[in-house]
């Protein structure tokens, strides 16, 4: 369980996949506007939300992530026209499957954040981190192929 060595508090690991065109820029704007959100959130840049393979999210949970959030352009605003629609459908399916195997719905989230929405990026991350704190540490997924 990821406990802070000094304080003994739960410090979750949160992975945020952000599309390059909208959400990553939104995160940049949150930064240049000095809008704080917890350091527990770490961003991985992808060209488009549709680049995010469900495998990446499973991998994150397998490696000990407590929450994974995917941010893309607003519907209709995707730089590649339709990528976020693919992402939305894929994630709906994946998240309900994860819920089924015990990774609560609250640990996964899809959010549309435009390049102009620094405030939304920051509030979203604050909310999401608060939710993960509320849920506590995640059950760790295991890849049985690696265990003999």
């Amino acid at each position, binding site marked *: 369980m990821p406990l802070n060595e000094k304080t003994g508090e739960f410090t979750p690991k949160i992975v945020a996949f952000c599309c390059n065109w909208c959400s990553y820029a939104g995160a940049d704007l949150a930064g*240049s506007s000095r809008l704080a959100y917890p350091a527990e959130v770490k961003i991985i840049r992808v*060209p488009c939300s*549709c680049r995010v393979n469900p495998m990446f999210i499973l991998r994150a949970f397998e490696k000990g992530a407590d929450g994974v959030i995917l941010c893309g352009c607003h519907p209709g605003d995707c730089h*590649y026209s339709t990528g976020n629609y693919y992402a939305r459908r894929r994630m709906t399916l994946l998240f309900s499957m994860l819920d089924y195997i015990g990774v609560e719905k609250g640990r996964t989230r899809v959010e549309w954040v*435009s*390049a102009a929405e620094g405030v939304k990026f920051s509030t979203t991350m604050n909310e999401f981190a608060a939710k993960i704190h509320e849920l506590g540490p995640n059950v760790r997924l295991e890849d049985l192929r690696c265990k003999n």
Partner: protein
Amino acid sequence: MQRIGVFVCHCGSNIAATVDVKKVVEMAAREPGVVHAEDYQYMCSEAGQAKIAAAIAEKKLTGIVVCSCSPRMHEATFRKCAERAGLNPYMVEIANIREHCSWIHKNMEEATEKAVILARAAIAKVNLNAPLKPGESRVTKRALVIGGGIAGIQSALDIADAGYEVDIVEKTPSIGGRMAQLDKTFPTLDCSACILTPKMVEAAAHEKINIYTYSEVEKISGFVGDFTVDIRKKARSIDANKCTGCGACQEKCPSKKSLSEFNRGLNTRSAIYTPFAQAIPNVPVIDREACIKFKTGKCGICSKVCAAGAVDYEQKDEIFTEKYGAIVVATGFDTIKLDKYDEYAYNQSKDVITSLELERVMNAAGPTKGHLERLSDGKHPEHIVFVQCVGSRCSDERGKPYCSKICCMYTAKHAMLIRDKYPDVKVTVFYIDVRTPGKNFDEFYRRAVEEYGVNYIKGQVGKVAPQPDGSLLVQASDLLDNKQIKMKADMVVLATAIEPDPSVRPLATMLTASIDTNNFLTEAHPKLRPVESPTAGIFLSGVCQGPKDIPETVAQAGAAAVKAIGLLAKDKLTTNPCTAKADELLCNGCSTCANVCPYGAISYEVKLINDHGVREDRRIAVVNNALCQGCGACTVACPSGAMDLQGFSNRQIIAEVDAICR
């Protein structure tokens, strides 16, 4: 194994004040593959780049990680630096420890820990980077300008003067746009038509410019340098080649009750019409909704009176396809609807009008032939009240949150013109703030007050109440006197907020250009790239990007043209090498990837494959690197895991995930 160098930037105190950069260097140096790590005050400076170049040469680095600001800021800088030092530019990764770390965290320990993790993720990724080589694509030497107002006309003229073909697509029957509707322009008070019409004529006569009026963009595909656009020429019901513009048809047309769009609905026009006398082209259109011939089959008078035989009731919409290297968007603006602001009685009294309507009233070619009069009864007004910020600076859903920028100046202009022409008319302006930055602008406003005696009152109007005698009672506050005022007026003019023309929204979707919450097109960088869309090859001209006046619009139109010319001047463009690629051994040719590709970049070939000694012909997906934009949709759709994205491969992203969750 890679030989990786890590370079941690202080960014002055921007990073170093919150992140312990020495600690980041120390921790990064322990990561696998890292053979060099150092920090410097400004990595992006010449001295900083020299350090990187030196390390690449000395330590024979095969990949580098720069821990600095956002890659959106300086990725290109560091890639060029690496390239100059002999390293493939795609062997560079950026760890964003400024926007995503130092700027949002206060606690140094926490921020340092995060910076280390972000550096680790970048190192893990670069360990799996492979050198990439950008491809090339051709540039079609032709530009498309969408919108034929002053912004579009100026951009088109500048591009055409540089020697490139330009097509202007304008949805209304004439070019000219909003500026053609204006009477006089601030701060010089020259007549709008006098300075616009010559430009319209110049554009129409330019051998490199083709104007498609009454036309709309229907479909856009392709990418920078090579856009393919379908344009719909709406049926004008007139053969433009035959029409002489004599105007007989309009005179004789018996259906004269349609509201004139050009005069903002203040008077009527015939069903067959040109919007205004100086229209370009001077070819009318038939409004089929209003035309008796189209509604009942009977009439046909216009056809009978047309000596040239130009009227063609059978004409149909025509769609043609053209290729362009660059697109300039100049779709302009409209005033917002005032339905939700009826405290100002806009829908209750004809004497409450918008400022744009006042332009038509003041104009010699307008509904009152330029006489200032009450529209309800034609009476000469004694007192006119102007209300500023109607619908601008509103945080509720009735209006717009932004300042429309042009209203303070045009209201001063209107007030001054009225006082100049009709010294007997009293003019009062209610304002919240008078915002007049700009050359000779504040002087202009002060002239309205000092020389023309316009009465400026700080305070907003709360209600306009029509009175039984036909006047209007204006109830407002005078904040400097701390009073509530009730004053009689004969006309009230509302400085109505402007908003992007509604056509821009579907257009932005077609262009995959980003748009903000107010429907203004977003620029690539608010300060450093203000006339480019984040989508390559799309340039922004005029109010479609944000509120601006005529000089600013013309300046931006010129700037957009220069950017477009810079693109068109190139023979070839280097393409993004981060494209999809199929693993021939894994691909089973199922077509799933082609079905999700938004660019039609994937085709199939039958190829002889040597699969571990088994040689057979297989149907294999092949990605066209010039078409692929690197979104990665196909990589996730591929059921066999054959498709991967170069520069953002499955292994690379998983390495980042692992590093973050470690």
